[in-house]
């Protein structure tokens, strides 16, 4: 009535690929598809580990030729100085071209208003969309991973956006095999997520394997922080701490790096890559659960932001 597969254990096939090699190959394939089919692709580069990983993969995909893409950073004005320093050093080292869309300029020009809670993450969408329109980017690489969040888990590798950058999760294109359909009307663009299938642990294991350098804030260090809604935020002139919030020095590290106003640090003594990998493998919290205030706003916070054109 039914057959059950019996498997010889421990047989290693001569042509097997490790899971990191499979993920790497898939990402490289995606980068090359975009290079082959689009006119003006751009990589969203924040200096966070996921965008650093993307850039590393892109460099490998086209070596020994240079990366055929420019970079775009949406600068919230509340970025960690260590990360901005890393960004500029990386751009110089690889002879890349960087575009910066500045949230601060939008606020100064009165085109965006500061939110009462001071977080600037949701404010990135308009500068991002306008930069895409202004430079006529047709493919925009994002470092989003499906394991990060339940709305991201639903997104295609090639995600079509209208001229307002909006995502309609109910009308996604079928995505069959590895045949990515990037056709779009003028004014529309495609968000491309080459590391969709990577988990946080995969990212770290690969960073270790490849010896990729990261900004220091990913490793445990002493930092002046204060507690807001259960998260350790960095004290700074972006708007914290408030009067009742007590600043203390703690040994922390960042699991994700975004806007200072909504990215929390975690208590940690992981000073090396090995330590970090051990810490993540044992963690009982997701990286966003541990560190992101913006996702805690409501059950569908990420979906709503993505619909509006967020990363």
């Amino acid at each position, binding site marked *: 009535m039914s057959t059950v597969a019996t498997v010889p254990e421990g047989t290693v096939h001569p042509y097997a690929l490790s*899971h990191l090699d499979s993920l790497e190959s898939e990402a*490289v394939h995606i980068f090359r598809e975009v290079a082959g089919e689009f006119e003006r692709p751009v990589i969203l580069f924040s200096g966070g580990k996921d965008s650093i990983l993307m850039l590393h993969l892109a460099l490998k995909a086209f070596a020994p030729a240079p990366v055929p893409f420019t970079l775009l950073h949406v600068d919230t004005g509340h970025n960690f100085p260590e990360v901005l320093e890393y960004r500029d050093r990386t751009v110089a080292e690889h002879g890349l071209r960087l575009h910066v869309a500045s949230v601060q300029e939008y606020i100064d020009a009165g085109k965006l208003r500061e939110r009462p809670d001071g977080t600037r993450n949701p404010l990135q969408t308009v500068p991002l969309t306008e930069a895409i329109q202004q430079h006529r980017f047709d493919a925009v690489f994002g470092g989003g991973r*499906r394991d990060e969040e339940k*709305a991201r888990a639903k997104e295609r590798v090639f995600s079509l956006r209208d001229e307002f950058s909006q995502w309609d*999760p109910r009308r996604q294109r079928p995505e*069959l095999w590895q045949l990515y359909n990037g056709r779009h009307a003028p004014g529309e663009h495609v968000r491309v997520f080459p590391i969709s299938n990577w988990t946080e642990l995969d990212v770290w294991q690969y960073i270790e394997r490849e010896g990729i350098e990261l900004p220091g804030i990913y490793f445990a260090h002493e930092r002046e922080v204060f507690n807001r809604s259960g998260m350790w935020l960095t004290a700074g002139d972006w708007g914290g701490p408030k009067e009742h919030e007590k600043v203390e020095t703690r040994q922390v590290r960042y699991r994700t790096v975004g806007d200072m106003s909504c990215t929390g640090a975690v208590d940690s003594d992981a000073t090396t890559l090995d330590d970090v990998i051990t810490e993540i493998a044992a963690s009982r919290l997701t990286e966003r659960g541990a560190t992101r205030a913006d996702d805690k706003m409501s*059950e569908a916070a990420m979906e709503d932001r993505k619909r509006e054109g967020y990363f």
Partner: protein
Amino acid sequence: MTASVQPAEQSAATTLLRFATAGSVDDGKSTLVGRLLHDSKSVLTDQLEAVALASTNRGQEAPDLALLTDGLRAEREQGITIDVAYRYFATPRRRFILADTPGHVQYTRNMVTGASTAELAVVLVDARNGVVEQTRRHAAVAALLRVPHVVLAVNKMDLVEYAEPVFAAIAEEFTAYAASLGVPEITAIPISALAGDNVVEPSAHMDWYGGPTVLEHLETVPVSHDLTECHARFPVQYVIRPQTAEHPDYRGYAGQIAAGVFRVGETVSVLPSGRTTTIEGIDALGESVGVAWAPQSVTIRLADDIDVSRGDLLAPADDAPAVTQDVEATVCHVADRPLAVGQRVLLKHTTRTVKAIVKDIPSRLTLDDLSQHPAPGQLVANDIGRVVVRTAEPLALDAYAASRRTGSFLLIDPADGTTLTAGMAGASFAAVTAGAAEAAGTAADDAEWDF
């Protein structure tokens, strides 16, 4: 997130299995996935808290594990899955990429999306309802896509008093249907996704079942390395020509090996032109290698300076596919607008997109008895049918059965880029070998064609 049961044992060199759920609406796919993630300790505290809170807000007593994957607002409001959710988990034995697909007929295209890259499909059936039309549709899609392994999970056994005859009858009916689709092997497992029976832990209610749990099966099913035993195929994605002082003459052809193995020194044909040359070098993302295999992304350097560009295919000179402008294929129609005879479309095959015209739609498949309804004139959403297409330029096309990657294609609406159909060149289903209906589990002979 992938925090496994024993993180220390997780090595970076474990194998990867991609699998998808399938089956009719409400048969328990998302609940099974939630249970699998939960019982393998792959759900982290904050995710579980969020699910518990969302369930309470909806007036449910216990945490609804389906909410672990039903992440969209509309899905939670309606209690159904609309689009594929991808989840990742690992055990000390293996890593998994899991696609939870929707059962609703309206979203079949999303099921096709999830199944197209899967190496294994778990087809769920509600023990109370048995095999229904949507079970048949999904089984047919899995068979067409040639998903290498199919598991039947007879779910909600708790609602039929864990009775063996119920399981046996469904397993028999499904296995016979699958055999007529040419599916070589079915593993049938009785489960309760809600209660957790035979998902990760063996059931305490079904002594009569001695087979593996769902997770045990997923952990031990052989990951197909068949890819490297297939005819070698390399679609060129991009030409790398640095023209820098350091690399003035470097010219490499970048791509992902679609199937088989390539070696330095090998004589290859460039298709569709048919010119031959020799592989001079293979650069595998940073190191030069003598041999490379599917699905590695590499850059191939050729001995002769011949015209090669994106859309060309490299294949061993003595094992190259025929080049054709006439494509006969089975398609799953995935768009809301129909596909009609005479329609002008774009055909996207590997790295090549060409103009094409639909010459004929000889038949549409009737799911109940798998008979062919002749000359339907057009295909509408969720139809499976045969098409004949004429392309404006020659394609180096394999039969899908021989090579998933170089035998598959999309038809695209040139007006707005909508993906119309998923196409599979050659015969639809693997041939049914004599006696397969009685002795399901015998591998069907792929060399035979039933069209």
